[in-house]
């Protein structure tokens, strides 16, 4: 598994396309795709939105993410960094932010390589 992270609009998808030769069709949108499709996708983007959808469906993002790491260990997972702001007033937003943090830690742990994009520049932080 390979993880690509960074803030919004830092060039994460572009990097994935360039490095791995992915087409737009290869990249599954984690905010709108069929949730089961995540387990077979070459690449999933916006995984933080997958976490949000799981929470909305009362599913356990931790368990789902562990299953993803087990069953689709060759995938490239793109997940935004969203935890660097003020604690949200809305409880569901707080839970989403924290669960995204935990899910990201699980993906990072299971990835042989983690790349962080800053201003379009890839910085390898693991591997």
């Amino acid at each position, binding site marked *: 598994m390979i993880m690509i992270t960074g803030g919004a609009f830092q060039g994460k998808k572009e990097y994935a396309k360039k490095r791995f030769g992915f087409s737009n069709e290869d990249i599954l949108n984690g905010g709108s795709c069929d949730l089961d499709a995540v387990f077979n996708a070459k690449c999933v983007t916006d995984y933080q939105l997958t976490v949000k959808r799981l929470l909305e469906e009362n599913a356990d993002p931790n368990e789902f993410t562990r299953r993803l790491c087990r069953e689709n260990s060759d995938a490239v997972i793109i997940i935004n960094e969203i935890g*660097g702001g*003020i604690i949200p007033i809305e409880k569901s937003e707080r839970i989403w932010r*924290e669960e995204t943090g935990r899910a990201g830690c699980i993906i990072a742990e299971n990835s042989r390589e983690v790349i*962080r994009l800053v201003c379009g520049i890839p910085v390898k932080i693991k591997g």
Partner: protein
Amino acid sequence: MTVLVTGGAKCGKSHFAEMLFSGFEGRKLYIATMQPYGEEAFAAIERHRKLRSGKGFETVEKYTDIDEINLPESCGILLECTANLCANEMFKDGEPVDPTDKILCGFRHLKSRAKLLVIVTNEVGNDGVVYEKGTAKYIEAMGEINRRAAKLADRVVECVYGIPVPLKGELP
């Protein structure tokens, strides 16, 4: 040695910070700055207690005035976390006061007594949201505290989804 550990929410800061003490010999103090108000704070405190249990830390609960803590010489100190300390100092009397000098004075006090000091802080200014005055002041204060603490620290590490990324010096 003084280490500043920063990062966003649930990025593995605590785990990393605690690991730095695994080979430490001598008394280890954990300065807890989070006030146990509300269900979520309580849950967070419980979770951190579990993480720490069996690791030999003496817990000192101190929500403000860390410059007044009596400290043994050459101890290990883990302070967690600056974001709570900053909010507690800033908003304790209603109207926000600038907490930066006082908190830095506290950090210097800890540093003067500790063989190993690890300060856990937070990134709070990266969501791009424009907040009302009190919160904006808080973000500004946290930015200043983090910059000054980084100067005082020998090493600075940012945790990104559990991965420690060195920002100053090598990884401790």
